[in-house]
């Protein structure tokens, strides 16, 4: 019985959350530092996982298995494959930045009652989310995954509804109402998705008799577990719906803009860069592996939906007046790419999609956090309220630009690699869809540059004339992200090497092989 590394990786932030919440009201700063330290320690653990993980080794590694709820056929099974490891690392990596970026977001305006401790709560909730996300990446037992997939909503819900941008064009009252609207919308959307998935989970149990992903896949492969076509399709839809809400896929996306708009920038990053990844990850791990045939059956429809997401999201991003909403719709467009890559059923597509999840996490974090710094300075989310920032705060503008360029996936920055892989992977099987998706890169350039032009360039607006440039803390947050963006753009091999074997496995699970180049095919 070796050291339960995976459990530790999830348990540490969980314990940290409790500890942070327990910090007395007066010691706000202590709570912050505690949270930061815990997240860093978690990062250290995650890196250990990364190191201990052998890309060419067994499919699931560092596995742990304990009996949990026998009557439900549930085992506490953990294990990571390349995809999970990559996302695990991403999560652990982003949280410290999120904590650091949100350093002052939860300072109470007025010191209310003794027992009201928003700051402690804020950081505790972030850590709680981290713990749940991590364990849902690690779970190889469908039920365990489902549980944390669902519970995750609760802390997220409080994060969205409880903390928001201080300034609001219609005052604090309107802000709080809109916040709780956004929070409720977020929770209900995902809860409905989750409950429909619950039905499917139960169905899966009725069919399979247990929840162990490897066992079910095994059983299906060697034919010992037969699933009627219709059953498989229904179950697939049940699972996919939940993940599509989480991802989010058009037309289930409308909760994301509200949530990201109302939440503070760090929380918005938490939503789109970390939590939503669970959805796309789960498509790759559960939908494809558990229901290969149904996945293939649904592929055309899903590809069309993702295509719509790509174009639709980008176009709406162009039409936004609110910086955070714009980023949200951009993310919807990007999630379209991810899902498209997953269901293109080619190695390039799926490796690209996984890589995309990582890169999108980093790039959105960079862009959104800088946007958050910007908003916190001027106290407005409206693009129209800015102008000429570049002149007064060149550093801020520069980082913002780089974040933007990453979002439009400029070659040399990380997202380009993944986006191109997804496109190629899709094009190889569905040329038409691939070509249309390529329009997305033009639109991406459009909304990013329009945003940059309207906010950063032009004559300096009087309101922003006194705007300070990035502070040390903020620079510490942004600089590493940018370095990562460039590094992974120039040298993504480390990630692809981890991901590729896992993708190869998935491809074999769905009995798909990459299409041959026509020249070879001719020969």
């Amino acid at each position: 019985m070796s050291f339960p590394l995976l459990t530790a990786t999830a348990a540490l932030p969980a314990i940290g959350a409790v500890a942070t919440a327990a910090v007395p009201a007066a010691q706000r700063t202590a709570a912050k530092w505690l949270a930061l330290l815990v997240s860093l320690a978690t990062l250290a653990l995650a890196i250990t996982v990364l190191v201990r993980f052998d890309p060419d080794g067994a499919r699931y590694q560092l596995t742990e298995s304990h009996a949990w709820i026998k009557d439900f056929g549930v085992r506490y099974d953990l294990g990571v494959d390349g995809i999970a490891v990559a996302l695990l690392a991403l999560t652990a990596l982003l949280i410290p930045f999120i904590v650091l970026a949100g350093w002052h977001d939860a300072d109470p305006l007025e010191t209310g009652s003794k027992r009201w401790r928003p700051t402690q709560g804020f950081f505790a909730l972030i850590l709680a989310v981290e713990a749940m996300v991590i364990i849902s990446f690690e779970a190889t037992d469908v039920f365990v995954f489902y549980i944390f997939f669902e519970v995750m909503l609760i802390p997220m819900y409080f994060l969205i509804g409880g903390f928001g941008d201080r300034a609001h064009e219609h005052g604090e009252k309107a802000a709080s109402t809109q916040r709780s609207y956004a929070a409720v919308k977020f929770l209900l959307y995902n809860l409905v998705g989750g409950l429909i998935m619950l039905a499917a989970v139960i169905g899966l149990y009725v069919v399979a008799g247990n929840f162990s992903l490897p066992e079910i896949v095994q059983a299906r492969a060697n034919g010992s577990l037969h699933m009627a076509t219709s059953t498989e399709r229904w179950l697939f839809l049940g699972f996919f719906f939940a993940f599509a809400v989480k991802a989010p896929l058009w037309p289930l996306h409308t909760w994301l803009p509200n949530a990201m708009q109302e939440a503070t920038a760090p929380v918005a990053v938490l939503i789109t860069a970390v939590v939503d990844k669970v959805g796309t990850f789960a498509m790759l791990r559960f939908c494809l592996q558990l229901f290969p045939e149904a996945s293939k059956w649904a592929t055309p429809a899903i590809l069309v939906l993702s295509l719509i997401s790509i174009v639709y999201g980008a176009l709406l991003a162009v039409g936004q007046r609110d910086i955070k909403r714009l980023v949200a719709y951009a993310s919807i467009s990007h999630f379209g790419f991810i899902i498209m890559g997953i269901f293109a059923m080619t190695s390039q597509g799926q490796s690209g999609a996984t890589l995309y999840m990582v890169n999108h996490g980093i790039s959105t974090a960079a862009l959104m956090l800088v946007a958050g710094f910007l908003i916190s300075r001027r106290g407005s989310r409206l693009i129209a309220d800015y102008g000429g920032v570049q002149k007064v705060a060149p550093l801020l503008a520069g980082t913002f630009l780089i974040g933007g360029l990453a979002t439009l996936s400029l070659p040399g920055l990380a997202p380009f690699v993944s986006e191109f892989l997804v496109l190629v992977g899709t094009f190889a099987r569905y040329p038409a869809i691939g070509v249309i998706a390529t329009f997305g890169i033009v639109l991406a350039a459009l909304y990013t540059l329009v945003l940059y032009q309207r906010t950063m360039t032009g004559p300096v607006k009087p309101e922003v004339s006194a705007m300070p440039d990035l502070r040390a803390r903020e620079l510490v947050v942004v600089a590493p992200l940018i370095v990562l963006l460039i590094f992974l753009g120039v040298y993504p091999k480390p990630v692809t090497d981890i991901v590729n074997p896992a993708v190869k496995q998935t491809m074999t699970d769905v009995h798909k092989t990459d299409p041959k180049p026509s020249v070879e095919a001719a020969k």
Partner: protein
Amino acid sequence: MENLIALLIAAPLLGAAVLLVGGRRLDAVGHWIGTLLSTVSFVFGLILFVDLLGKGAEHRTLIKHLYSWVPVAGFQADVTFRLDQLSMTFVLLITGVGSLIHLYSVGYMEHDERRRRFFGYLNLFLAAMLLLVLADNYLLLYVGWEGVGLASYLLIGFWQHKPSAATAAKKAFLVNRVGDMGLSIAIMLMFTTFGSFAFGPVLNHAGDASEGKLTAIGLMLLLAACGKSAQVPLQSWLGDAMEGPTPVSALIHAATMVTAGVYLIVRSGAVFNAAPDAQLAVTVVGAVTLLFGAIVGCAKDDIKKALAGSTMSQIGYMILAAGLGPIGYVFAIMHLVTHGFFKAGLFLGAGSVMHGMNDEVDMRKYGGLRTYMPVTFITFGLGYLAIIGFPGLSGFFSKDKIIEAAFAKGGTEGWILGGAALLGAAITAFYMTRVMLMTFFGEKRWQPDENGHEPHPHESPRVMTIPMILLAVGSVCAGGLFSIGDRFLHWLEPITGHSEGNSPLSAAAVTGATMVCLVIGVGIAWAQYGRGPVPVVAPRGSLLTRAARRDLLQDDFNHVVLVRGGEHLTRSLVYVDHTLVDGVVNGTAAGFGGLSGRLRRIQNGFARSYAVSMFGGAALLVAATLLMRAV
């Protein structure tokens, strides 16, 4: 030796990094660092050049594999550089002209507090451009391709406080993105066709692929070229790009970046050779653009915009040549190089003029400047002679060859293309003469500006004039140097291949025709601007003139169709998203709320009505049970 290739790129990249990250403390020396590093890279280029010359014609391709970039199953993208005669030519042009312009900018940007950043961007551009021409596979080329796009975006918008500059920068990037779309689709097609997108596999097996696929690839590459090289229909950005500082216009929007399209097509020659339809499309685009640009050039009063039009048209020539296949490749590149010299020279001259005239760009407010800035006048003049193809100067050789090649295409196509090329030559002569006359001849037409500053023209400092002189030398000699004994032909042939084609006209005839056109063009210009005084306020002009002033209504079209249409589309989509997609959900919620509100009325508080419901329920229960048994 191979490692030097990497260093070639590394030098300016390092410069960019240092200058951009370095911060204010480098403000004092930043420009020198930039210039130094670009020169270093030029020196490396020379060393490699000498090394290549040392080798036999067939051993002149150096490959440097750096590392595996994106390895995913069949998709293998490496960071590999290829230095052969073609890329060598570009390396020298880029680094050479680049270094000169760096030097020039030291003077030109002297009074700009963000000069360090300017040089950072310039170095970034050099690095990207070198990556573009040295890449050994299309994906890596794509990186350079967008890299130069980014650099040009940053440099066009360098004076960001000017909304016009910011807009122009954005426009340039967007239009280029459309082109990039073509390039990326082309790469995907290559991948699905050849299972690779490295030059070797693609170009060597081009023959094996079906012509349809190749045509598709070719057209997509052409789209990319149109975007980058401002060819019709994607030319609209180049004019606005003149918002950038003049050295930028000289380096990026005249000498190097805009010619990347030509490089792409020539580099992909093997594909085009096997796809005649694509080639035809290329030639058509080229011919149309060379006329389009020339006509626009005639109407502009803004000296830079006029030159921009001419750039467009000259690149039209190159594209045309490139479209002609092996007949034209070499001359396309040759004209590209010579054009690099004289057009850069012309722009620097224009910059020097503006420098002396408080950044006035309207030629109608110039006049008679030859006395005030002699050096500028002479260098500009030489460039002028070169571009109109004055016998003996570089433009004469390169352009003449292209016209010949165009006829040599044979058939009606040949005649049409050749005719277009000739006409272009005439118009070129016209508008360049116009620029020359309006700027340096006639009486002075400048007045004090609104706040009473009387511009007092003066010659630019030496740091600016030296590059101009050098470029002038280049534009005088380059042509001869290349053509005498077909040196350039033999140099490039191993890469591009060459064939004479069968010209219906003798070379002499073509040259003669060109000369005639030249004389006509110059004559008309002299008649219009040389004899009488030039009106300070532009006359209304003919319909064509007015159209030409507005880039032949191309921008209006874009504005109406794309911009307005796009705005409407997005606005309506935002509405749809809010009312329809979101509305459905909120509607459902509201529906349940309403239902609930209605149902709770049943709970009216009267015990007896509760009893009724129980009684009814019991009855139903009984009835249902009995029913179940009945059925």
